[in-house]
């Protein structure tokens, strides 16, 4: 029922959106990689950015964090325009970022990695709760961060942004290169986080995984969002989606 209500509102831009991206252009040095990205995310939603390699999904997340060399347009978070802000100020508004390469620090042990991002707001998960979500991390908390398996590193990269009080999580391909059983575990975690009230933007190439966690899918191609498909209408649009993704 709740999902149906969410869907009927999808068309209204801005307004009650937690994150509102419009006309977002971005550059890596000289190369123009984003050409007017538009999408909204409402509180409590899980939205994916789907698309082929090089479509601009990761660049979109980086641009939202202010990590691209140059960006123009508008990225509003809780109504605050962030386009001119530094990454650290954007983070402090309440956005947690989990990069594609996971960004685990090799000179820090697991616990230090977990405790690294500072608290930016009330209401983050407790360390106990994070260890409960990812028991492997508790067992290995004295190990060097990069000695963990790929799956454990991914859990650590997600876990450490849950502590901070950030309510919007940007997850860049959390399932990339992981075994199916780990992918399932991460899927379960994302559904759990949604229940806890987190809002999530997820970059994915794995359509089946995306379908198992998301409310809506934004299709990214050549640096813009070219289509938006609610998860409930996925079956009707599956051929179109396969076309977009080149499967």
């Amino acid at each position, binding site marked *: 029922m709740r999902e149906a209500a969410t869907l009927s509102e999808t068309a209204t831009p801005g307004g009650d959106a937690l994150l509102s991206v419009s006309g977002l252009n971005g550059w890596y040095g000289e190369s123009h990689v984003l050409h007017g990205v538009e999408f909204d995310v409402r509180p409590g939603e899980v939205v994916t950015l789907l698309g082929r390699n090089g479509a601009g999904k990761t660049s979109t997340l980086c641009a939202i*964090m*202010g*990590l691209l060399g140059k960006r123009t347009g508008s990225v509003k978070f809780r109504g605050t325009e962030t386009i001119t802000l*530094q*990454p*650290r*100020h*954007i*983070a*402090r508004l309440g956005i947690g*970022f989990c*990069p594609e390469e996971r*960004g685990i*620090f*090799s*000179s*820090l042990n697991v616990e*230090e990695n977990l*405790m*690294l*991002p*500072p608290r*930016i707001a009330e209401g983050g998960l407790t360390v106990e709760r994070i260890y409960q979500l990812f028991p492997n991390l508790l067992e290995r908390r004295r190990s060097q961060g990069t000695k963990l398996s790929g799956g454990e590193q991914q859990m650590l990269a997600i876990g450490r*942004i849950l502590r*901070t009080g950030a309510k919007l999580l940007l997850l860049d391909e959390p399932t990339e290169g992981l075994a199916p059983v780990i992918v399932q575990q991460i899927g379960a975690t994302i559904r759990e986080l949604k229940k806890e009230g987190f809002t999530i933007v997820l970059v994915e190439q794995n359509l089946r995984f995306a379908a198992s966690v998301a409310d809506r899918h934004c299709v990214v191609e050549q640096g813009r969002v070219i289509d938006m498909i609610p998860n409930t209408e996925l079956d009707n649009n599956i051929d179109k989606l396969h076309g977009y993704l080149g499967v």
Partner: protein
Amino acid sequence: MGQLLLGLINGSFYAVLSLGLAVIFGLLNIINFSHGAQYMMGAFVAWMLLNYLGIGYWPALVLAPLIVGATGIVLEKVALSRLYKLDHLYGLLLTFGIALILQGLFRNYYGISGLPYQIPASLSGGQNLGFMFLPNYRAWIVVASVVVCFATWFMIEKTRLGAYLRAATENPALVGAFGINVPRMITLTYGFGVALAAFAGVLAAPIYAVNPNMGADLIIVVFAVVVIGGMGSIMGAIVTGYGLGLIEGLTRVFYPEGSAVVIFVIMAIVLLIKPEGLFGRAA
């Protein structure tokens, strides 16, 4: 034994100075060629505090590093911070130029003959250990440098602040994306590294004459120590600092003619066999 002690004292200075260089290089990626001049400034500031303001050794041991560290912070803010996106070479050239300017300024006003600085009364005299006479002040240098080195190592490797520092050394962009003010951390780190140099300068003031070239003479050896230990390695800088001081002292006993070059010979060998340094991370 006397030569060994002398080696250990030299090693104390090598360790504190190369530690400061390692801390700065780790986070800023800048080879701080003005380190020797900042060491010299530490000694001069201690001398000035005493002669102009009547402030003695113990307060100077805290004040001089703070004052010189503050000049480092200004230097980082005004000049160094503009160079991070460029090649290492620019930082090297800038800090080298600043070292020359500082040495020239002090030479202009204070000459090169060296100014006397008394050992504080509480540390004059010495202990007769039976096999040798140990001046109290020299023992103090070793103790103070060990404490400072260990405290710095502990802060960087074992505390939360140190975790920020290590993380920012690896991936400053991501640390910034977690909401941490990396530019401010870089500024403070440079100030801290410079303060370490000044601290060594104050320690040195009573036993070496306070003169504008005191840093220039020492820093060449310290760079060799850093190369041997491995650029950016904290523990490497400390261990090689003391170790090479001792080796230098031993050489003075067994082959005095070689004592001036032994560190550079070791540097050449290490560069041939393990170019990243004994404790360095492979590039």
